[in-house]
């Protein structure tokens, strides 16, 4: 059992695991019926699914004898940017009343998404 074959088998395994998680994430996206619960599916795919595929890419490059570390950068940038898009989708859901209105915060007036100057049907912020 050489290093090459170990790396190849490990790459195949991580490809398999990553694909399973991506399939499950897509199933979740189709199955859930509410925008906020649907949002949970892509965050899952974005972390473990893509992470395992990139790990497979690293292992395959080692098996080919030309180690590559670009995948670590992809993972780092993905982990930094993925929450931003999820946050924006959540904000749109709250703003457009596509979901149940969240309970108001204990110490402050309201949530910043609901704090609109024209007051589109939201309770006016209090305790300023």
């Amino acid at each position, binding site marked *: 059992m050489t290093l090459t074959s170990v790396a190849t088998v490990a790459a195949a395994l991580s490809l398999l695991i990553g694909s399973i998680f991506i399939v499950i994430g897509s199933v979740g996206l189709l199955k859930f019926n509410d925008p906020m619960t649907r949002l949970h599916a892509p965050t*899952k795919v974005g972390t*473990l699914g893509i992470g395992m595929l990139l790990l497979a890419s690293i292992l395959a490059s080692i098996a080919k004898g030309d180690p590559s570390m670009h995948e670590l950068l992809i993972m780092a940038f993905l982990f930094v940017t993925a*929450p931003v898009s999820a*946050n924006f989708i959540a904000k749109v859901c709250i703003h457009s009343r596509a979901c149940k209105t969240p309970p108001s915060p204990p*110490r402050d007036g309201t949530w910043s998404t609901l704090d609109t100057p024209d007051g589109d049907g939201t309770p006016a912020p209090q305790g300023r």
Partner: protein
Amino acid sequence: MMRAYHWLLPHPFLTLILTVVWVMLQNQVSAGMVVFGLILGIIIPRMTAIWWPDRPKGFRLGKMSVYSLIVLWDILVANVQVAWVVLTVPNARLKPAWIVVPLELKQPEAITVLAGTITLTPGTVSADLSDEGHSLLVHVLHTDDPDAIRDDIKTRYERRLLEIFS
């Protein structure tokens, strides 16, 4: 001397990260690449310093690495849990919930890291911040006990972040 240092390196940590990213982009470590990365790492923070007036005061790199490992492990565990929820719990029995997390963190950088951590961990998405920044709104996919998740976020992540950014 200190002022010259602050003028040249407004964000020393950003300089380090830019250099490391540049070397990793090249995929090989050579002296020339490190020097060029350093030059980029000095020029870019200097040119963008106007838009970054503040920097986090204390930042403990060692504790941050421990924190990253904990988060990676939590992502693995939570992924399996959420996959199980997706496959086995029918929509009618799903119990999504809003959770309000009162924040002790004050620094914007620390709150950003906390919100990012919550979103990256499957099963929870940080949705919004209250208008004065004292609470974080989190959406949970499936839970029987929202208070337990709130306490978990506070003890597991926020306490550590308070130590990192102090």
